[in-house]
């Protein structure tokens, strides 16, 4: 499956990935409304970390053996057997945060207003996730990597 990878050396920590992610996961799909008007406020599923000159954005890597899916208490998290995407069924999520506790990347985020865990869905319906499409420095790559290689990387 295709996943989003970071190129740390060209990430400038501009946060546009967070901005566009939030817009994409809003009701209006309009940045201005998403940031200023909507309630519940839409939340970004990616987060940028910065330490000095180092910065990169983090999102769910859709692990092939996803610990969050195995730990989910309610069955809200599941891995699509065809696409490989790890999906969150927000109706089933009770916001217990067990998935956060087992995610090795700290990639799952809390929507505190709705008491739901939210995570990257690779922008289902889009050809390329909006964080990748709108990264001004090409610091994000949407690419296909064989699962064997990936499982070594994700441990």
């Amino acid at each position, binding site marked *: 499956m295709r996943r989003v990878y970071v190129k740390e050396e060209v990430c400038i920590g501009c946060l546009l990935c967070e901005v566009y992610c939030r817009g994409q996961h809003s009701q209006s799909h309009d940045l201005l409304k998403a940031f200023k008007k909507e309630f519940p406020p839409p939340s970004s599923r990616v987060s940028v970390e910065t*330490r000095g000159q180092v910065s990169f954005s983090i999102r769910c890597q859709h692990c092939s053996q996803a610990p969050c899916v195995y730990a989910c*208490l309610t069955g809200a998290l599941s891995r699509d057997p065809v696409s490989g995407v790890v999906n969150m069924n927000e109706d089933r999520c009770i916001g217990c945060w067990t998935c956060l506790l087992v995610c090795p*990347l*700290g990639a*799952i985020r809390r929507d505190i207003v709705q008491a739901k865990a939210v995570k990257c869905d690779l922008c289902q319906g889009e050809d390329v996730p909006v964080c*990748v499409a709108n990264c001004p420095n090409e610091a994000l790559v949407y690419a296909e990597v064989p699962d064997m290689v*990936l499982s070594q990387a994700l441990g």
Partner: protein
Amino acid sequence: MTSMEKVKYLIVGNSAGGIAATESIREVDRSGSIAIISDEPYPAYSRPLISEYLAKRRDLEGMLFRPADFYERNNVHALLGCRVKQLNVDEHTVELTDGRRINWAKLLLAIGGVPIVPPIEGFDLNGIFTFTTLDDAKAIDQFLGHLVKRPTRAVVVGGGLIGMSVAEALLRRGIEITIVEMKERILNTILDEEASALVEEALRRNGAEVITGHTVAVVTGASSGEVTGVTLDDGRSECCELVIVAIGVRPRVEQVLGTGIEVNRGIVVDRYMSASASDIYACGDVAEAYDFVYGENRLTPIWPNAFMGGRVAGLNMAGVPTEYEGGTAMNSLKYFGLAIVSAGMATAPDDSYEVLNSKSNHAYRKVVLKDDRVLGMVFAGDIEKSGIIFNLMKDGVKVDGFKQALIADDFGLASLPQEVWRPKLEMPPSALASAIDLFGQPEQIVVAE
């Protein structure tokens, strides 16, 4: 019916472990026959959600752990509401209470735990409940529906996870609550003093009374057989209409005793989730499986460990040798909106451990270390990055170069050495050649006004 049915895989227990095993078997064996037996008459539901059921926030449909067509889609023969009477290890059979006999090639015992109910005077009265199954939640709900007296008070015996979850549900129903915990603080097995105090404060703020360091000595009742109150070990008495016994669970091992299967506190399993008898596996609350923090087999009766154990058991049953990497006590709590996570050792057993902690306005962070490896953690408030530390603990990563960062307010993947985060986020160099860059033309940067 006394005819013998034959299945390749027999799974006793229809909760986390049984469902996980079914799914992992089906990943590698699409056609081998599977039967699931459970004494509960419901399709698999999320047991932690019985609290939401009692609070009237979710019905059974909203609690289902898997879609309604799970059994059909996986070609599983579900025997729900059936009870195993006898397990015959050598014959590879089980006998059900309705007389049916089932012959199995591989058996998984995912039979869970039973609530611990101590011998206390008055525990036979009407108005005493346990709280581990949907039927328990239904029974309490029905009891409340028939009560005419308002306000109603419940005494919860035990300040552990089950006690907290029933207390929260009952408070949401407008019931007054007294929690009686024998030890000096609530949640004492999974939290440290600071985090216990945070939960206790949240409970009190929401109207619960919390009594620690005492036990219920007697439950008093009316001549009609109804509960009227409790008397504590110090002579204090409290009026109440119902008592919830929430002391904990123990492995449901009765049917296994005497069969030759090794039982310590629970069914002893190896790293393949295999019990001591061939072709028999166990997982979940009934099993004593490997704990990676303690490096030995322990009971860790929590949902995610049951699921992982069941998944590993299923793969091994289907002939794919798979080692259980181990589980440990691990909980994420959210009582009244207060988020707390803990894993491994919440408190250091002795002075040979190093403890680091920090407090800020919105977070409490603590790690327990030994030989520069994380063996325990407690986070409250801002818990979003706690998974990173849990995985350092699980992987046994040496943290000597960055241990202070673990409890910093801005902790994240970037706090770790590059060699830890780079392989997790960047495209593996070995894959670069085969990768397809789908980025295409860079777009104009558009910043919304």
